[in-house]
């Protein structure tokens, strides 16, 4: 099993989620995160001073998939999260040693 972790733009979430559902992974976990990278922050003003916010809102999607689904999952995410502009984010793949479904106690691939 692999954990696919994608840090994407918040407004791409709905599309990515639909795409994952389509390839058979409705079970996902979402976290609001802030990211810093090449993308420049947003210019803001406060009481007459301009300043730049360093961290931008991003969304982290985590989905644990079967080894053989790694590629198509990554592809589905990348395709649907892309805007082509700096700040589109990253996808990381991690090894998973085990998974357990809390409700039933099933472990391993059956738990996904």
């Amino acid at each position, binding site marked *: 099993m692999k954990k696919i972790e994608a840090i994407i733009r918040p407004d791409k979430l709905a599309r990515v989620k639909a795409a994952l559902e389509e390839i058979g992974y409705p079970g996902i976990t979402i976290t609001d995160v802030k990211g810093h990278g090449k993308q420049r922050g947003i210019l803001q*003003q*406060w*009481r*007459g*001073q301009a300043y730049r916010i360093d961290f931008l809102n991003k969304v982290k999607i985590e989905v644990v998939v079967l080894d053989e689904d790694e590629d198509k999952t990554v592809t589905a995410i990348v395709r649907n999260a892309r805007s082509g502009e700096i700040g589109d984010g990253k996808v990381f793949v991690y090894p998973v040693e085990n998974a357990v479904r809390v409700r039933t106690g099933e472990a391993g691939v059956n738990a996904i």
Partner: protein
Amino acid sequence: MPINAGDTAWVLVATGLVFLMLPGVAFLEAGFLRAKNVVSTMMQVFTAAFLVSIIYIIIGFTLSFGPDQGGILGGLSFLGLRDVDGNAWAGTTIPGLLYFAFQLMFAAVTVALVTGAIAERMRYLSFFIFVAVFVFIYAFPAHWVWGGGWLARLGVVDFAGSIVVHITAGVASIVAALMLGRRIGFGQPGLEGHNLSLGALGGFLLWFGWFGFNGGSALAANGVAATALVNTNMAAASGAFAAIMMTWSRFGKPSLVMGINGSLAGMAAVTGGAGYVSPISALVIGVVAGLLMVLGMRLVKGKLGVDDALDVSCIHGIPGIWGALAVGLFADGRLGNVTGLFAGGGLRQLAVQGVGSLVVLALVGGLSFAVLFALKRAGVLRPNTADELVGLDIADHREKAYA
């Protein structure tokens, strides 16, 4: 004069409206500060409400409005509100107790305004003591200008307090900001307000409450009250307009926060002349106040690097001075024979207003310095770094604003 029910009705309400400026200040400030200092700031304003009430009824009122003692302070005739009751207050058609209540709210608002300058880095204990002492400090300008003191005799007029309230609060603020020093992180991003809805609520409450502040100062429900209310609204509008145009042209984007601040600056300025000038003059007074405020902020925070956290000196102090002078320019004789330069009254009123402003500035500045210096010496003025970092809500009150 006998009590008039209509006048009494209006001043009863106006008293409530001035009270409502306290939450106005509390939310304006809390919203424009960081989430970790929200309880602290609201507690400070709440303290202005309850502590001033208690001290003012005992001693503050009589020091301001007791029989004049050599032009300096009022005598102790009204100590503990003795002889102040439901009968008409001399020279008015409203009950003495109501006159007291209206004045009390002014005292509370004045000290509440200072909380914006000292925010996020003054120990509650120190603030508590500061409020208590401030009731005494405030008695001087109040007596001098409104209580028949020497400035009043000199001819200084101040309809609802550009001098007594806004210069007083403004100068105390800048002194306090200097004594406290800058917040950790001053000048860097990260000090932005945590909740602009809350701040806007404060701004709107202040605009609303100011109708009572200025309109109620007529102490009657008549044409003067109406004039004051209209002028208040107009100066708020034009002050907001000026500040918004400044940010729009400078950053390409108009700022709500600066618009709100501009409306406050406009009202602080028109407060002195609310009953003396025409609505069109009020528009002009407000525009200038809005511009002065923006420029003042660039000077105080930008150039001088003084951390007057919510710019009380620029939103109240500078417009307060301008408003005091503006009476000398725009007063058109509609009330009490006060006539300014532009209505052919010559320079005398302008000069007198300048003297009044300077005197109050110096006095309040000096006394504020004295009390804050003592608190600093005592080592209770400012929290330690860890406490400031964790925020005063936890450090001083063990309460978090948001779960």
